[in-house]
């Protein structure tokens, strides 16, 4: 295993990720595995060659992920979906996930400094509306037991979100409770 140099702060820099258990070797991939990877280029990634040990779950997870975040035909703008992902990751403590989705949030919102304040100060940073309402809803959903309630819905509505946009927040934040646990379970980030 290569030497790991774990980041000790949340960052928007590009990080690597090192698996604690063995990914499948590329030469062992069959058509069943490629179907699970969805995107064949992912065969080059250790993370995806690890997850492809269960190809059916990986395929369904990937397609769930892509629709929740990339389907912007209607509903919440991509920037706010990425904000929900970054805030969830910041709160749960997934430094790798937070780095990727903080970068996306910055790219789509053009508010890099505000995103950096979320990473530096944590989920209590005052980012204005509607971002505060999105971050608060994400934090309430990340709690166990789940703390998301009517107050969160009321705040999101006051911040201007309609019900379809609120469902995008619920989907995006909930999905990162999946993504964070998967990445944190199986490996660690490295600078």
């Amino acid at each position, binding site marked *: 295993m290569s030497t790991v140099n*774990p*980041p*000790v*702060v949340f960052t928007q820099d590009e990080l690597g990720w090192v698996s*604690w*258990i063995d990914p499948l070797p590329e030469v062992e991939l069959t058509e069943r595995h490629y179907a699970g990877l969805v995107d064949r280029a992912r065969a080059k990634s250790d993370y995806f060659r*690890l*997850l492809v*040990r*269960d190809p*059916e*779950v*990986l*395929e*369904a*997870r990937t*397609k*769930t992920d892509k*629709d*929740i975040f990339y*389907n912007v*035909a*209607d*509903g919440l703008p991509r920037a706010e979906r990425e904000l929900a992902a970054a805030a969830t990751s910041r*709160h*749960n*403590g*997934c*430094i790798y996930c937070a780095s990727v989705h903080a970068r996306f949030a910055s790219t789509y919102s053009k508010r890099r400094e505000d995103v950096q304040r979320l990473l530096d100060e*944590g989920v209590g940073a005052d980012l204005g509306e509607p971002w505060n309402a999105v971050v608060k809803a994400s934090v309430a*959903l*990340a*709690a*166990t*037991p*789940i703390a*998301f*309630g*009517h107050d*969160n*819905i*009321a705040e999101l509505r006051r911040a201007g979100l309609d*019900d*379809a946009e*609120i*469902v*995008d927040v*619920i*989907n995006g*934040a*909930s999905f990162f*409770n*999946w*993504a*964070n*646990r*998967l990445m944190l*379970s*199986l490996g*660690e980030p490295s600078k």
Partner: protein
Amino acid sequence: MPTEDIIDTLAGIEPGSALDVVRARRLQARENAQKSYLALFEPIDASDFSLAERAAVAAFVTGLHGESPVAAFYREKLAANAEAARLAEAIDAEIARGRTSGPYGAFPAGPLSIENKAGLIYRVSSERKAALGPRLVAALEHAHLLVFRPRDAASADMKALLAAGWSATGIVTFSQLVAFLSFQLRVVSGLRTLAAASA
């Protein structure tokens, strides 16, 4: 006949309702959340993680989140599994011992250390270890970690699973199952809350 959508069922979303229409706008996500559920609970290959083990872990993980329609669903699923039903009492007792509030845990030593939050480091009670067996004991301990203190996960936790007889493939599916349930519970809770707020 398509299988009933499990999230719609657990969230009480009726065909033609306002939330049914909203969910239909993310059809690929809806269909693949369902496929994820089926891939985890009706897999084509359960040789690395048995259906009985899946039922036990799912009842434990959803029960740790408190009472809910999702927890009730997976408790029934455990009771319906011929091989695992005998574990229902032990799982219930371990849920009671494991319930707490998360997320907590430690960050890598450095500026984030001031955010470290201590909490329960759950271990299966010694009196139930024999009934559960070493694979499930290790699985419940790791599942508790992922539910409440995911940032504490370390390579040593993988070694504990491997030492208890889990294969690398089994660990991947097991991690997916715990992580997927964390998603499913939240989508259901969020949609239920939204439906109630719109009533």
